C-alpha cells in the first residue's frame, strides 16, 4: 500500500526494456494453431498472426492484432491476443511486464522431501506455463480415448492468451534440510521477521512455493492456477490463495489505478530501467543462480472498509498525504508533483503529515529505498462479523527482502493508515530468472 516510494517518471516509456531480452525464438515465429491450440475462433487472417512486437517491458509481447481489430484496445492494457514468451527471457514474466488487470496468487506447501521430485514439479510447471502463455492447453481438452482423464481442465479452451504471465517463487522452506539446498540459499533470504502491527493468520502465511498468475482475463489466470495446482497434487498442497481483481499499482506507461480506499496507488512506483537495475534485479553475486531474479513479498492486507467509508475526506487525505481525486501530494497540485515534506499548511504543521502513508514510505525519507509494487484489489465476500472482507493483495519485488522489512517496520509503527488496515497474510519468495529454452525455472539451483 506504499503509494510513495518511487520517483515519478512523468513521461511514460513504452519501449521494451533493454535488460529484458529479446523474445524467444525468431521474432517472426508464428503462433501455430495445431491440435492443441486453445482457441479456434480466429479463422480469418491467420497468415499475419505474428504481427509485431507490442510495446512492453519484461519480454516483448507478440500480438495477433489483425484478428483483434474489432475489439477495443485498452488504453494502457494489452489486447487479449497478447502472448508473452516464457523461455529465453532474462527475467521471469509478471514483474516488469505491464501489469495485467487480474491476478491469482497461490502459495504451496511441498509434501515431497527429495530434490528430484521438486525438480520434476518445477520442470512440469515450467512446460505447462509456457503452453498457457501461448494460449494453449495442457494436452488435449477432449482426449480421443474414452477412458482417458483430460490433463487440461478446459475452462480456458476458447480464450486467448490474454497477456498471461505465471511467475514461480521459491519459499524459504526450499532451502531447509529437506532438499539439500541449504548451501544455495542467498544470504539475504529468510522468512520475514514479525513486524509491527502484523495480524497474520497462519493459514494465510508462508509457503514453500508461490505462483503469481496475471492476465487480462480472470478466467485465463484462474485456469492456469487450477491446472498447475492439480499437477502439484502428490507433490505440494495449496496453502493459501488470493484472487486479485483490478490492478492497484501503476506499471510503466500505465495510468495510476485506485485501490479500494479510492486513492491512486503506485504514483511513484518504480518505472525506470535504472531503478529496476538498482532496486529489483538480483546481481547474482552471492548465488549465481539468482542473477536476473528477484525477491517477491506478498501480503494480504485487509481493509476495514466500513470504517474507512465513514471517515471524512479531510482525514482520508491526511491519512494518505494525497488528495483523493487528483492524487496530488498535499504539498502540491498535480499527481506527479514531487512531494515536498517541508511545505507547511495554514496551521503551520507540515502539509503532508509526518505520519501519513506517503511521508513514511517516500524514498526521500528512507535513505533512497524503493521497491516495485505490483498489487491487486481483492474481495472475499463478507466475513464472519458481517463486514466486507476486502482489501489489497500487496505484491512487491525487490533485490533484498530487507527493503520491505525496513519500510514496513516504519509503517507498522506509526502509519495513520494502520487504523484502517490489517496485514493478515504474508509470504516471501526467491524468484529465479527466466529459464533458457530446454530448461526450467530454478534448474540452475540444482546444478
Amino acid at each position, binding site marked *: 500500500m506504499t503509494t510513495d516510494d518511487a520517483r515519478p517518471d512523468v513521461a511514460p516509456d513504452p519501449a521494451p526494456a533493454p535488460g529484458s531480452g529479446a523474445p524467444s525464438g525468431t521474432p517472426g515465429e508464428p503462433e501455430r494453431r495445431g491440435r*492443441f491450440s486453445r482457441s479456434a475462433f480466429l479463422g480469418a487472417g491467420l497468415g499475419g498472426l505474428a504481427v509485431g512486437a507490442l510495446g512492453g517491458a519484461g519480454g516483448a509481447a507478440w500480438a495477433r492484432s489483425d484478428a483483434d481489430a474489432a475489439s477495443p484496445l485498452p488504453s494502457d492494457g494489452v489486447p487479449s491476443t497478447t502472448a508473452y514468451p516464457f*523461455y529465453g527471457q532474462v527475467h521471469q514474466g509478471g514483474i516488469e511486464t505491464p501489469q495485467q488487470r487480474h491476478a491469482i496468487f497461490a502459495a504451496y506447501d511441498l*509434501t515431497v522431501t527429495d530434490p528430484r521430485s521438486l525438480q520434476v514439479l518445477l520442470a512440469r510447471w515450467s512446460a505447462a506455463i509456457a503452453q498457457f502463455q501461448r494460449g494453449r492447453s495442457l494436452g488435449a481438452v477432449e482426449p480421443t480415448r474414452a477412458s482417458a482423464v483430460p490433463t487440461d481442465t478446459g475452462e480456458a479452451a476458447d480464450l486467448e492468451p490474454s497477456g498471461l504471465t505465471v511467475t514461480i517463487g521459491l519459499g524459504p522452506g526450499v532451502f531447509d534440510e529437506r532438499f539439500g539446498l541449504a548451501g544455495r540459499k542467498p544470504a539475504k533470504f529468510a522468512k520475514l521477521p514479525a513486524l509491527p502491527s502484523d495480524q497474520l493468520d497462519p493459514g494465510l502465511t508462508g509457503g514453500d512455493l508461490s505462483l503469481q498468475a496475471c492476465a487480462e482475463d480472470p478466467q485465463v489466470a484462474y485456469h492456469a492456477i487450477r491446472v498447475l495446482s492439480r499437477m502439484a497434487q502428490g507433490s505440494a498442497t495449496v496453502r493459501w490463495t488470493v484472487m486479485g481483481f483490478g490492478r492497484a499499482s501503476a506499471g510503466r506507461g500505465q495510468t495510476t489505478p485506485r485501490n479500494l480506499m479510492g486513492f491512486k496507488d503506485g504514483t511513484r512506483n518504480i518505472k525506470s530501467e535504472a531503478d529496476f537495475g538498482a532496486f529489483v534485479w538480483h546481481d547474482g553475486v552471492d548465488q549465481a543462480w539468482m542473477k536476473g531474479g528477484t525477491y517477491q513479498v506478498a501480503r494480504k492486507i485487509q481493509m476495514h472498509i466500513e470504517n474507512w467509508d465513514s471517515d471524512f475526506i479531510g482525514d482520508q487525505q491526511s491519512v494518505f498525504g494525497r488528495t483523493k481525486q487528483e492524487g496530488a501530494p498535499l504539498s502540491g497540485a498535480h499527481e506527479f508533483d514531487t512531494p515536498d515534506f517541508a511545505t507547511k499548511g495554514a496551521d503551520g504543521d507540515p502539509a503532508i503529515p509526518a505520519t501519513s502513508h506517503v511521508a513514511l514510505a517516500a524514498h526521500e525519507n528512507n535513505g533512497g529505498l524503493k521497491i516495485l509494487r505490483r498489487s491487486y484489489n481483492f474481495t472475499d465476500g463478507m466475513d464472519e462479523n458481517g463486514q466486507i472482507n476486502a482489501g489489497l493483495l500487496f505484491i512487491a519485488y525487490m533485490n533484498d527482502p530487507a527493503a520491505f522489512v525496513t519500510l514496513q517496520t516504519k509503517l507498522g509503527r506509526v502509519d495513520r493508515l494502520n487504523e484502517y488496515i490489517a496485514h493478515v497474510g504474508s509470504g516471501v519468495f526467491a524468484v529465479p530468472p527466466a529459464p533458457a529454452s530446454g530448461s526450467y525455472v530454478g534448474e540452475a539451483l540444482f546444478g
Partner: protein
Amino acid sequence: MQPTLSLRTRPGRAVVGLAGMLGAVALVAAGCSSDSGGAAEKPGATASAGGATKVDVTLTAASGTDACELSTASVPAGPVTFTVTNKDSAAINEVELLLNNRIVGEKENLAPGLAAVSFTSTLDGGSYEVYCPGAEKDTVAFTVTGQAATSPTGSVQAVLAQGTAEYSTFVQSQLAAMVVGVDNLKKAVDSGDLGTAQKAYATARPFYEKIESDVDGFVLPGFKATDNKGNLDYLVDMRASSLDPAVGWHGFHAVERDLFGEKKIDAGTKKYAAELATNVAKLRDLATSLAFKPEDLANGAAGLLEEVQANKITGEEEKYSHLDLATFAGNVEGAEQAFADLQPGMEKIDPDLTAQVTAQFDAVKSTLKTYQDAAVLGGYELWTPQLRRTDAAKLSQSIQALQQPLSKVAEKVATAQ
C-alpha cells in the same frame, strides 16, 4: 463418477469374455515391457537390457514446431530400449509405443530440462507407432522386422483377468458379510437395546462402503431407473441430503438417525431395519451377475475415493453417528483392494505409476491410522464438526494426492496390450 441412468437399468455390467480376450492377446504379438528410469533419473543410470537395440526418442521445438524424432525408423525383433529426451518441447509431455492402438510401453511427465528416461520392450515384428501427443505430427511410424527369438510370456491381459476374477470374489464376500451384519443389526434393533443396536450398526456399515461403486447401480425388477422406490442404492444408503420426499427415509441412515440422532428404538426403527435386511439380501442376489473388466476396477476405486471427498470429509454420510472415518476407511480399503488386484498387471504396464499409487495409498492409510481408537464405536475417532474444522483439509489433500495417479489407471488397463 455418479451412477448413470443407463447403468441403473442394467443390473450387472457387461460380461467380459475372458476366453475371447485371451485369444485376442495371442494375436497381438508384442511382448512384455520392462521399465527403467524414474521420471528424473540421470541418463547414465538408465539400464538397458543386455543386447537390446537402442532407439533414441527426442522431443524438440527447435524449428518452432513441436516434433517427436526417432533415431531409427526400423529395428529387428527382440528387446528394444527407448530412451526419451525432451530437449525443448513444452507441448509434449508423454510418449507411447503403440501396436494396433494398444500401449506397449510409455513414458509420462516429460518436460524440458529433466534427464532422459527409458523403457524396454521385447518386440515382435509388426508396424508400430510412436505416439507423442502435442507434437505437430503426433504419430511416427516404427517398424519391427523379423520375429522375436522367444515368444513373450505372461501377457498383461491374462494377468489382469486373473486380478478381476479375484476382485469378483472379494465383492461377493463383502456382500455376504453385509447380509450377516445387517441381519445382526435387525436382531439388535428388535431386542430394543439401544447400545447393542448402535454397536451392530457400526459393525454392519463398512461392507457396503468397500464395494459401493460396484453395486450402486441396481434397480429392483419392475421399476424405472428414475424411480427411487426401486433404486436399491437409495433404499440401502440414502441420506438426509439425498432425501426424495416422494419415497421418504429408508435403509442404513434411517436406522442411524433413530439410533444416534433420536437415540430411541420404536416400531418405525424396527421396520427400517427389517426392510434393510430384505434389501441387502436382494442386492446380494442381484450382484451375483456382476462381472468386471479391468477398467471397472480402476473406475470403481476412483469412485470410492470420490465418495470419500464428497460425503465423508464433509461429515454428511454419518451425520448422526459421526462414524465417517470408519466408512472413509471402508472406502479406502475397497479402493485399495481393487487396485491390488490390478497391480500385477499394472507393474507390467507402468511401474512408475504403480509405485506412485502404492505410495499414496500408504500415505492415506498412515494418516488414517492416526485417528484409530479402539475404544470408539467403529474403531476411529468420531468425525465431529470440531475435528472436521481442524483436520478436513489434511485428509482431503491426502485423498487428492491419491486420486491424481489413480485416475490414470483405467486408461492404462483399458488399453493394455
